[in-house]
């Protein structure tokens, strides 16, 4: 993005709720604030959107990083905070803009000063990281050092300063602060530090670097929802060779067989699987050779992670449809990787929602490494939750569940030994609750998405009720699968948002959750802020049954406890309410 483009995006008319950010630095924020605003507006608007929400960035005073952080922390408790530090903030003697006469004891004195200031900033930030989102950018300006030494030699002094900074950043990251990766300046651009600009204006960065840093900060402040599932081809993708022709023993992924890049891709699959990304295979093959190859003990990932494996001679788009159905996720949550341009074109044409990536040919290992890095970004999530780890296993259980359900649904439900635990705790902040609210489409009361700081503020209001439900039965645990958030008013609980993971469908969790809400809040009426969306058909169906059909497109629905008791189907899950 150019500075001019950033300014144009920043100037566009605002629609919807304002996103407010404190941006703390000790330099003149100038173009970094401009780029940050533009990238935040773009991310908040979402892909293909022509409307941009308002973004307000509050900055502080020049040369007072710690004071600016104090000021930001003393304001609204839930507002996100971006902190970008430079060496001069840690000791003015390290800045290029400040003049001072070097002293013989600088090498001893400066690290102490830096350690002290880092300690203060760490204390400021880690003390409040549970209450608000904090992102941190680290210094990139060169260190002003006048020491003697060989050309190209790193001095003990600079190494010590960098070690202090790295240890500080690691402690901050462990405490939950999102530390921005050092932004990469695009090829052909000037370096990150702009001495001329720094001297003239107090802004230390080149515009390409300011743009790249703003991208990193914005992606940490407003992470985009990750893709959910990866469908991969097998031949010349997971391994080098055609298993149907070469045989399972003669497909390769090792360095010795000049096929290491395929092994790297397998390790990528293992890593994604461990993070809860759903993995499946779609291969034009017979099942037998594929099964034989996937049984090889030297694979670098567990083949059990691939579920389902679609090995057939039909169109890949049909395989992808079946996989999405088995996973119970939308096609727009899928990524497809194949080495064959024709297969990718067929999928793109039939299923334009699916994101397709070409697996590069073996003679381009660097491109394969780039693909692996791209996939890591497309599935990147802030943290891997227990639910993420359970997801793949629970999908296999779902397949067994579906078979049992088809035989005798009522007998299945009554024999599930199901347990629903509803937590009504409003703190500490639960990222899984927010994730469910923001990524669930099918059972979603109205499609409302929550910005993190608004959610944190809302749940802390005195009359708010927040219910996070976890479910397990004899097929296994599904983890946290439902979230309801609303307020208690005038003898009723009014839900502003209510979502249930599609993995928990057909278990009557929706009715048990209502029961728990009414019991816990001890009210006689349930009100729902209903809004039909293009994707919440299952919610419409359930509410239609509860309200005897005829739902409006939007509006407040109301049902008394008495009517609910009459209308809900038999509930077999043991429900536990936790304060």
């Amino acid at each position, binding site marked *: 993005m*150019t*500075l*001019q483009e950033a*300014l*144009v995006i920043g*100037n566009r008319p605002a629609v919807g709720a304002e996103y407010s950010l404190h941006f703390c630095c000790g330099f003149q924020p*100038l*173009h970094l604030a*401009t780029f940050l605003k533009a990238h935040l507006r773009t991310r908040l608007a979402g892909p293909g959107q022509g409307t941009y929400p308002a973004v307000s960035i509050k900055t502080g005073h020049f040369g007072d990083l710690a004071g600016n952080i104090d000021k930001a922390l003393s304001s609204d408790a839930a507002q996100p905070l971006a902190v970008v530090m430079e060496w001069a903030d840690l000791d003015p003697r390290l800045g290029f803009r400040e003049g001072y006469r070097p002293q013989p004891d600088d090498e001893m004195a400066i690290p102490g000063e830096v350690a002290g200031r880092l300690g203060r900033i760490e204390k400021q930030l880690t003390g409040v990281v549970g209450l608000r989102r904090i992102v941190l950018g680290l210094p990139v300006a060169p260190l002003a050092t006048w020491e003697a030494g060989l050309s190209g030699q790193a001095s003990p002094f600079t190494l010590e300063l960098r070690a202090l900074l790295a240890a500080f950043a690691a402690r901050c990251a462990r405490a939950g602060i999102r530390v921005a990766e050092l932004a990469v300046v695009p090829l052909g651009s000037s370096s990150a530090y702009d001495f001329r*600009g720094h001297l*003239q*204006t107090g*802004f230390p960065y080149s*515009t390409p670097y300011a743009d790249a840093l703003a991208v990193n900060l914005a992606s940490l402040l407003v992470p985009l929802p990750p893709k959910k599932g990866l469908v991969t081809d097998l031949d010349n993708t997971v391994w080098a060779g055609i298993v149907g022709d070469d045989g399972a023993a003669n497909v390769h992924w090792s360095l010795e067989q000049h096929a290491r890049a395929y092994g790297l891709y397998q390790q990528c699959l293992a890593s994604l699987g461990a993070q809860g990304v759903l993995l499946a295979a779609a291969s034009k093959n017979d099942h037998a050779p594929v099964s034989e190859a996937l049984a090889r003990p030297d694979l670098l990932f567990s083949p059990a992670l691939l579920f389902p494996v679609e090995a057939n001679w039909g169109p890949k788009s049909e395989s992808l449809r079946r996989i999405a159905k088995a996973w119970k996720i939308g096609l727009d949550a899928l990524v497809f990787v194949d080495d064959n341009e024709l297969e990718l074109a067929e999928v793109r044409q039939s299923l334009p929602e699916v994101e397709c990536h070409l697996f590069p040919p073996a003679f381009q290992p660097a491109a394969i490494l780039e693909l692996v890095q791209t996939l890591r970004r497309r599935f990147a999530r802030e943290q891997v939750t227990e639910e993420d780890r359970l997801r793949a296993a629970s999908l296999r259980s779902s397949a067994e569940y579906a078979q049992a359900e088809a035989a005798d649904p009522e007998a299945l439900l009554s024999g599930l030994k199901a347990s629903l635990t509803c937590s009504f705790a409003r703190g500490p902040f639960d990222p899984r609750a927010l994730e469910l609210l923001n990524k669930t489409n099918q059972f979603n009361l109205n499609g409302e998405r929550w910005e993190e700081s608004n959610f944190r503020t809302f749940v802390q209001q005195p009359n708010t009720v927040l219910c996070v439900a976890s479910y397990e039965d004899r097929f296994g645990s599904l983890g946290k699968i439902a979230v309801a958030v609303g307020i208690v008013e005038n003898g009723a609980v009014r839900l502003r948002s209510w979502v249930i993971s599609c993995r928990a469908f057909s278990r009557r969790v929706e009715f048990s959750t209502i029961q728990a809400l009414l019991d816990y809040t001890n009210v006689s009426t349930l009100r729902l802020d209903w809004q039909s969306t293009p994707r919440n058909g299952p919610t419409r169906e359930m509410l239609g049954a509860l309200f005897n059909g005829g739902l409006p497109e939007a509006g407040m629905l109301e049902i008394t406890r008495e009517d609910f008791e009459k209308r809900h189907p038999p509930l077999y899950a043991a429900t536990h309410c936790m304060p």
Partner: protein
Amino acid sequence: MSEASTQQRLAQCFQAVFPDIPVSEIAGASADTVSDWDSVAQVTLVSVVEEEFGVMLAEERYGELLSFSAWCEHLETLLR
């Protein structure tokens, strides 16, 4: 580079930095007539123009570049 296209590109730079100036008034804009034209706006304008035209402006000229016409004239000299 023709004069017209230089003026058009410069006008786009002005529009980005001063979104409240009507397009029809950009040619006559100056620091005296545009209330938002402060030191931060001037620094931003310098960066946007440098980026757009691939030039580097000398700091000592900043104080003279306080109108659209002054900018046009200076750019014409630089790009000649």
